[in-house]
């Protein structure tokens, strides 16, 4: 990862910054659909109080839901964390702090990606967890 130090010549075309510029736009096209459909499914067509363990068990019986959620997890996390990296580069003036914060961000991104991926892959509904899924 390239961390801006404020020294050296202006970045030329190509390289990490150009790559992330394109990545933000390409991931955005996917996220517009993935995130808005996700929002509609879990807040509109199904009330959020019904998105219980039982509902996850029904949905995750179909592996396509896991693929959908994993794509959303991966694209949203990378898109969001890269956005925050740009914000840090804009406002944190000290090079040392910029390096610390962006390193922390990279670590956090990896940790959250792993937590999310492991949750998606390893989910196995416990016996007897199928049934009515609206809470209360």
């Amino acid at each position: 990862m390239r961390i801006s130090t404020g020294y050296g010549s202006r970045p030329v075309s190509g390289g990490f910054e150009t790559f992330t510029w394109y990545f933000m736009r390409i991931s955005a096209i996917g996220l517009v659909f993935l995130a808005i459909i996700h929002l509609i499914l879990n807040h509109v067509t199904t009330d959020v109080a019904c998105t219980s363990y039982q509902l996850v068990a029904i949905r995750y019986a179909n592996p396509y839901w896991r693929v959908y959620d994993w794509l959303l997890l991966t694209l949203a996390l990378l898109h969001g964390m890269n956005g925050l990296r740009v914000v840090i580069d804009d406002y944190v003036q000290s090079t040392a702090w910029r390096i610390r914060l962006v390193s922390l961000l990279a670590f956090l991104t990896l940790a959250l990606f792993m937590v999310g991926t492991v949750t998606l892959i390893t989910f196995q509904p416990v016996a007897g967890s199928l049934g009515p899924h609206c809470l209360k």
Partner: protein
Amino acid sequence: MYRGQTGMWAWMLHRITGIGVLLFLIVHIVDISLLGFGPTVYNEGIALFGTTVVRVVSLALIGALLYHAFNGIRIMLVDFVPMAVRYQRILFWTVMILTIVCFLPMAYFVIAPIFGVNAGNTASGV
């Protein structure tokens, strides 16, 4: 030229909504990881989302996500369609109107249960 014009507000809102959605994403990855602890623990976490306070917070999330999505499309249009830059203002207000038009019906479904209104999406059973 730029300061105080629609472009500045669009840019500022894009950052604020982006950071807001990212904060929610971090919380959301953690709350989904509760799946690994079984139905009781997971459903206790999900029950929080059904409370009045979190429903109102969800409205902010929905508004932020819709704005960020539509404004992102505006940014890509300005980046890739040469003539789009001539319609800056119209594009910005289109983003705002689309955000509000999509937000209102979604907000209805989210807050209806607070007032005991059955919006048709809370039926028990599968």
